[in-house]
């Protein structure tokens, strides 16, 4: 009876066509723009083909942005997973059902915040003179000033901490839920063998959760690409270029500093190619 229905076609085709149009038009057009020399200030343009891409490889700020983006990915993904697994296991071990529910609610709150809000909240908190997060430092050192957002060595980590605050706590909830779905028998068996609690998790539960944890990491890697809001509000890529990721640099090239839309688009296209290839390969691996 299901076979003969027209439902799959009428339900699926319009949506897929719209999705394809909405995604392919900007994607292809991004490539077209990248091959031209458009600027915001003028309407005329000509084709320069690969000149923008060639310029990029000699642009030291671009290379710096690539490096900052890679650092950002690694720092946020690793820290998020570490926080998530650590807190998830702790909740599983020492919190009763009611307390777990309370923690789960609390830990979901940061990720729901608009990133702009989260960025502001922590920008205030990191203020060297009046911030609440720098207050303990002022208290201990008797009024010395610590300004994490304007020191090149700490700025990236200060911004990354906000990202981990949002995602690490949220993922801790998911890790807990994953642990709760496990059958109790292997854990009981390990316990009978006098395994310590941390051993049970290191050798039994977490290996059992390998596949979902890898998927979780995959999700975080994708979400880490969206660092722009945090960086735009908290540091604007500064101090200097210490936190200038690729999307921040593309934005400032295209809109703040010079209005070189084509140059910015060339950067965006490179980013797009890199992420699509990487994530497609990773996804096929995760699925396999």
């Amino acid at each position, binding site marked *: 009876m*299901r076979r003969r229905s027209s*439902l*799959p076609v009428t*339900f*699926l085709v319009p*949506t*897929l066509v719209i*999705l394809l149009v*909405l*995604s392919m*038009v*900007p*994607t292809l*057009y*991004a490539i077209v723009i990248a091959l031209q020399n458009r600027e915001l200030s003028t309407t005329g343009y000509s084709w320069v083909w690969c000149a923008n891409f060639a310029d990029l490889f000699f642009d030291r700020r671009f290379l710096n942005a690539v490096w900052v983006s890679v650092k950002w990915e690694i720092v946020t993904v690793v820290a998020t997973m570490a926080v998530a697994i650590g807190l998830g296991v*702790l909740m599983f*071990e*020492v*919190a009763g059902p009611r307390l777990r529910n309370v923690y789960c*609610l609390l*830990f*979901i*709150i*940061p990720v*729901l*915040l*608009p990133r*702009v*809000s989260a960025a*502001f*909240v922590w920008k*205030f908190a990191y203020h060297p*003179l*009046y911030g*609440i*997060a720098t*207050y303990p430092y002022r208290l201990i050192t008797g*009024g010395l000033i610590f300004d994490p957002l304007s020191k090149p060595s700490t700025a990236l980590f200060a911004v990354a901490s906000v990202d981990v*605050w949002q995602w690490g706590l949220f993922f801790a909830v998911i890790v807990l*839920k994953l642990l*709760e*779905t496990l059958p109790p028998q292997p854990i009981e068996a390990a316990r009978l063998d006098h395994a*310590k*609690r941390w051993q049970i998790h290191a050798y039994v539960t977490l290996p059992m959760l390998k596949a979902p944890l890898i998927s979780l990491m995959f999700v975080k890697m*994708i979400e880490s690409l969206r660092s*722009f809001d945090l960086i*735009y*509000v908290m540091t604007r890529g500064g101090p200097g270029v210490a936190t200038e990721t690729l*999307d921040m640099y593309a*934005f400032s090239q*295209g809109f703040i500093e010079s209005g070189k*839309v084509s140059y*910015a*688009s060339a*950067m*965006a296209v490179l*980013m797009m190619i890199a992420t*699509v290839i990487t994530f*497609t390969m990773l*996804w096929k691996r995760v699925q396999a």
Partner: protein
Amino acid sequence: MKPYRMRPGRLIAKAILALAGFLAVFPLVWTALNALKNNVDIITRVPRLVFSPTLANISYILGRDSVLTGLCNSVVACGSAVLIGVALGLPAAYAVARYPNRFAGDIQFFVLSLRFLPPVAVAIPLMVIWLQVGLYDTLPALIVTYSLLTISVIMWLAIPAFQGVPKEIEEAAFVDGYGAYSVFWRIALPVAARSLIGAIAFSFVLVWNEFLIALMLSSSNAKTLPIVASELSQQGMNVPWGILNASVVLLSLPPLLFLGVLSGFLNSVFRQKKS
């Protein structure tokens, strides 16, 4: 679960958890408190817990035209994009979940891969396109762009929700003479409703929080609330801290309203996995 480990370990573990719980909400609570403070009480070397509260910041925020326009724009843009996402995403998800064909895997991957696209890569060409067709800085442009987000996210999350509906119920309805469409309307939608609402709420939060695309596609008329809020901070060095905090609170409230729905959604996803 019987505690058999020594006490100190458990105590430390509990302390770490309590600290994490505190860190999760305290910065936000502090922001809310700052929204109620006069500037004198905010700019202090030692944070003040006791102060005489004022509503001046909040009333200033709510009285500003730019904030109200931003709020309206956000509500209209996000609301319409979510409605479009529901109208197009839910049926498509149902078709993928219930009428499997050999492209089902590819379709799912395509929908997910839309999330890989860097927002800048979408925003730059769209800005040029909208400028050329004369829709730059209008809500329709923003709604169309956001629909790409909402359709794909709703579809992605609704597929498992529809798969979670017991097949037997649908089969029984077919036997009772329901057509394919009425099974969708009268059976699948109501049964999956709880998970679907979670998926829809999630997509709303996602577009409400969106910043980069809104920043690039608007210059004055179509600014959404996050843009307006971020601009408030750029009023020079003499920052009106209380006002900024108040605007952060206003911006954060709508997503937090969905806290209950979304945590229920999480629970239902994992309950499904367990069974």
